[in-house]
């Protein structure tokens, strides 16, 4: 009964806020709804400098004038933006005493992914009574990075410790007015990751959000900024293969990458958010803006993504090839099962001379899902001798799923060479039977066939990530042939 009372109190207080909200720094959770006061509240909570508050407010004012995009090949009930709470103090997940308390289904999946016991505990929030390996690893890891002058921290920390860098780069690749969700993110982002690799430094290890995730949940409006200064190199990993559940339905992240002259950024993602039940109910909406700027000559940005989760994925990691001889790459595997919908692809904007881009997209549709590739290759007038090669393949697992390809090609320079190849195939019962007849289980058979199909993309992932991603593909598609 006490519980119901709390709920009542909660609804009464939030109602009150509708009529006149005053900033209360003591509160740990903002009431539902979005207005300038809420943004002031977030900014104050995070002790941000004045310029950032103004920046957020400007984004909010833009957002109010924008409408939610409808061009994507997805169907859903639009979120009620006034029904969301935009700030909650970093929540600690409930601590469990042992792995026995973890959802058995989740554990089974993690075991099959080959995730170690230690890692399983960390991911599912089990309290560990001795010094956790990964903590000590993370510490020595941070020391090593600091020696090289590499900054790798949360966005909040970066705003406090390196305001000049954040101010210089934030919003330069994805402007606040870019699109509906990017504008929303700019107004209300609560945290994310920041990474800066100084001139001439080659980051000696894969940078992974893994090393930061213990500190605080990143929340639903994540902001990531990665800058590689002249001649620098970094490989950045985002996400993990373990299934992630989240009470937030809407996720609208922004990721910005800047590569200066001769710099290279390799950005790999494995996304496995909760896709909802068989009918897609309760799954995460993943509306992400990811973009990289090849600012300097001979710079290179490459995106690799394995997308298996979320009810709806709306995501186009893109490259702006501004520097001469700059290179953009996009390698993607997107799996949809049951009622999942994905509209994903890339944009390659060629501005500099002798720029080149490669797009390899592998869609896999199962159940009654819909999987769309949407991509733009734009060769500007200034982009002499630009090259693009695109390959978009679709694999169908059932008779009632959908695969769609929407390639846009705009060429304004006659010296451009643009190639586009597309294929659609259905997974063969004959292929599976062939494998079974050689003694392979059906699970192994599907895993082999699907991984063979996606090989060109999986090969681009860092080694241990690739092994987990292969297993993830097989698990995502289990029992889906028909």
């Amino acid at each position, binding site marked *: 009964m006490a519980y119901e009372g709390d709920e009542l109190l909660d609804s009464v207080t939030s109602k009150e806020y509708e009529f006149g909200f005053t900033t209360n720094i003591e509160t740990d959770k903002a009431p539902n709804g979005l207005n300038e006061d809420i943004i002031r509240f977030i900014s104050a909570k995070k002790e941000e400098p004045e310029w950032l508050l103004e920046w957020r407010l400007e984004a909010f004012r833009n957002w109010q004038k924008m409408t939610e995009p409808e061009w994507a090949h997805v169907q859903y009930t639009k979120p009620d933006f006034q029904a969301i709470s935009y700030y909650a103090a970093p929540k600690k997940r409930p601590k469990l005493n042992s792995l026995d308390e973890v959802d058995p289904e989740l554990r089974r999946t993690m075991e099959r992914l080959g995730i170690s016991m230690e890692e399983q505990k960390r991911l599912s929030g089990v309290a560990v009574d001795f010094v956790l390996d990964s903590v000590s690893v993370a510490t020595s890891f941070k020391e090593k990075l600091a020696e090289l002058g590499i900054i790798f921290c949360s966005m909040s920390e970066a705003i406090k410790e390196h305001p000049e860098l954040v101010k210089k780069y934030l919003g330069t690749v994805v402007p606040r007015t870019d699109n509906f969700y990017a504008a929303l993110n700019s107004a209300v982002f609560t945290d994310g990751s920041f990474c800066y690799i100084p001139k001439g430094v080659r980051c000696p290890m894969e940078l992974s959000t893994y090393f930061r995730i213990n500190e605080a949940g990143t929340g639903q409006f994540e902001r990531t900024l990665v800058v590689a200064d002249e001649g620098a190199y970094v490989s950045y990993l985002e996400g993990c293969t373990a299934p992630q559940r989240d009470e937030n339905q809407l996720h609208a992240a922004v990721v910005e990458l800047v590569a200066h002259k001769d710099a290279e950024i390799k950005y790999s993602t494995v996304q496995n958010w909760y896709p909802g039940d068989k009918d897609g109910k309760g799954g995460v909406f993943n509306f992400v803006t990811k973009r990289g700027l090849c600012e300097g000559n001979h710079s290179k940005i490459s995106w690799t993504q394995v997308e298996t989760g979320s009810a709806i994925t709306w995501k186009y990691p893109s490259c702006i090839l501004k520097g001469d001889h700059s290179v953009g790459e996009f390698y993607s595997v997107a799996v949809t099962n049951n009622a999942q919908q994905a509209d994903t692809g890339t944009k390659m904007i060629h501005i500099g001379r002798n720029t080149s881009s490669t797009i390899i997209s592998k869609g896999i549709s199962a159940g009654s899902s819909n999987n769309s590739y949407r991509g733009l290759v734009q060769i500007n007038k200034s982009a002499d001798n630009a090259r693009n090669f695109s390959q978009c393949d679709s694999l169908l697992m059932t008779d009632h799923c959908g695969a769609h390809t929407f390639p846009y090609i705009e060429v304004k320079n006659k010296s451009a060479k643009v190639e586009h190849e597309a294929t659609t195939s259905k997974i*063969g*019962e*004959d*292929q599976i*039977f*062939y*494998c*079974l*007849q*050689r*003694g*392979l*289980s*059906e699970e*192994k058979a599907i895993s*082999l*066939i699907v*991984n*063979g*199909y*996606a*090989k*060109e993309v999986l090969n681009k992932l860092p080694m241990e990530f690739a092994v987990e991603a292969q297993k993830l593909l097989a698990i995502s598609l289990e029992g889906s042939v028909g």
Partner: protein
Amino acid sequence: MLLEIKNLQARVEEKEILKGLNFEVKPGEVHAIMGPNGSGKSTLASVLAGKEDYEITGGEVSFNGKDLLEMSPEDRAREGLFLAFQYPVEIPGVSNINFLKAALSEVREYRGLPQLTAKEFLQLVNEKSKLVELDGQLTNRSVNEGFSGGEKKRNEVFQMAMLDPTLAILDETDSGLDIDALRIVANGVNAMRSPERSFVVITHYQRLLDFIVPDYVHVLYKGRIVKSGTKELALELEERGYDWIKEEVEAANAQ
């Protein structure tokens, strides 16, 4: 008895194809099954391997003393039944070597054999690929992708040699082969003949049986084995065709 088929009946959709087939194979024997088009030869191969498209409507099949029809296709394979496909499928992106490594690993686990080390596995590949003169390049390429007809059939026999079955069914392995490829495939099969291993060779033509000499020859007609004999029967069929057999069957049915 290695394989014992009693009164086997099977259909695909509404069409009855096997109509009470009886057939036995002892260890080490080579049986050829011949017959006109549409008599049910390939259906028999598919049913034994466990392809889902067929509905078993009656009869029994025991393999190594076990009920074959109760087993999943993969367990039949692990138990030692190998089917060399008439049309081997392509699996893009999956190298022949990885495919075989995964298959052999599951098969050996089922049979209670220790797993091979990488070195032992490669030695085995080396040894067995020579049996069918399979180029080292082909073992590293994707399964059957871009293989010629002859290469695909040689690859089937190579896989057979790797997986070491007790019963190998060759479903029209000779189709689409020129005389040189036929000789290579047949030599591979002959090298694998042993008192522990049996073969069921399904073919249209006597030609293959010049190279793989069978112990017994059977004629399959309208879903039943209607005549059995030794290799001389194949020669007689080559010379006289199937009409005389059809007539014999019709005459028997008329009685």
